[in-house]
């Protein structure tokens, strides 16, 4: 057994490297969540389409994406897209995978949020002769957004915690950097523990942030501009 102790000097030495890799992790999470929200919203609206075929296909696509591992989806995009002449950087591939995977989860959140709007609201919108677009923009979404925030936030935090999987396609995010530092110095304790603590801290801060965002939205709805 190798004699073992926690070295603060080593921690201070590696901290800047890991923090600069944290920027990559945060960027991937940010872009991934924007894409996931767009994908989720499209899937949710497709699930409400008038065409039965479209609804059924969307249901199975969402089910398929949700029940297969993110890691395999990342590999799939990384290896298969170039076959079709689309080559992307590891970061973009990762963002695409995160966006699709969590978009499928978010579509369920959005769907139940939209379903939660009272029937009377839809009827009133119809009675007032609003177009479908105006009904969603002015009536449905302003009321549906607030109740969706906690669940959406939880999925975004979950996405953040899955970004280490992007290391598998050579993206230099926090865990990958920690692993490289670990293998160069043959000391894994400090880098991995540090990354773990950083994830814990970021998740807690994000959870608090989402709570604040939720409180900022008025309960009775607001106008979308």
């Amino acid at each position, binding site marked *: 057994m190798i004699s073992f102790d926690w070295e603060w000097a080593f921690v201070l030495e590696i901290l800047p490297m890991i923090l600069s890799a944290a920027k990559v992790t945060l960027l991937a999470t940010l872009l991934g969540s924007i894409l996931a929200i767009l994908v989720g919203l499209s899937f949710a609206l497709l699930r409400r389409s008038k065409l039965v075929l479209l609804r059924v296909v969307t249901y199975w696509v969402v089910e398929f994406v949700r029940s297969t591992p993110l890691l395999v989806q990342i590999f799939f995009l990384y290896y298969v897209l170039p076959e079709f002449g689309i080559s992307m950087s590891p970061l973009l591939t990762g963002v695409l995978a995160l966006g699709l995977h969590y978009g499928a989860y978010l579509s369920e959140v959005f769907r139940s949020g939209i379903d939660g709007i009272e029937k009377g609201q839809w009827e009133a919108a119809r009675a007032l002769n609003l177009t479908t677009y105006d009904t969603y923009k002015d009536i449905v979404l302003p009321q549906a957004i607030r109740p969706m925030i906690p669940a959406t936030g939880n999925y975004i935090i979950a996405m953040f915690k899955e970004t280490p999987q992007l290391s598998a396609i050579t993206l230099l995010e926090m865990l990958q950097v920690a692993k490289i530092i670990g293998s160069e110095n043959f000391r894994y304790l400090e880098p*991995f523990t540090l990354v773990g603590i950083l994830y814990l801290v970021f998740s807690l801060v994000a959870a608090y942030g989402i709570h604040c965002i939720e409180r900022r939205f008025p309960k009775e709805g607001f106008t979308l501009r």
Partner: protein
Amino acid sequence: MPFGEIVSILLEGTWVTLKIVAFALPLAAIMAFTFGLLRMYAPKPIKYVSVAYIEFFRGTSALIQLYWIYFVLPFFGVSIDAMTAGVLAIGLNIGAYGTEVVRGAMQSVPKGQYEASVALNFTSSQRLWRILMPQALVNMIPPFGNLAIELVKATSLVSLITIADLTYRAKSLADMTLQVTEIFAVVLVLYFVIAQVLAFSFKGIEKRLSRGLGRGGLD
């Protein structure tokens, strides 16, 4: 490489994946019940230990936990093979999420049931195992089904510590041959089938457990 050969290599990988699931799933269930109940009913110091376990495993990422167990524990003199590390990390991780399912389901049992069991002078263990648990169990099944699927998905992470599971074999086949589209399509379908079978079994369990509970529903 002929398609049949690819499929047979991938099926061997599926077997490894299923083996990990078979070990990690019971571990996760034991952790979920133990720490879920300890968190609710244990005296303070033990309660804090369970909260620490739950928050740590839910707050950090599964892959970090796996790397920590696989790369860091050997330095403490605990030598651990890849398979054990994988089962431990995934079981402990999903188990931590399961504690919340147990807690939520226990709290969803109507308060009157608890009050009635006190009024009828049941002992506290009778109250837990004969009154509250049988009713809570039915509510736990659907979220446990979802977690079981999450567990299957999480097993793909062990490919990153060189266990030759389905994902690992897919990746090495993809590096070797150029038939990446077929390989990954087959792998995705295999995972999807495993998940659907699990989802279907959990629906069956739920139906069985809710017999005699006088629940309404459509089937």
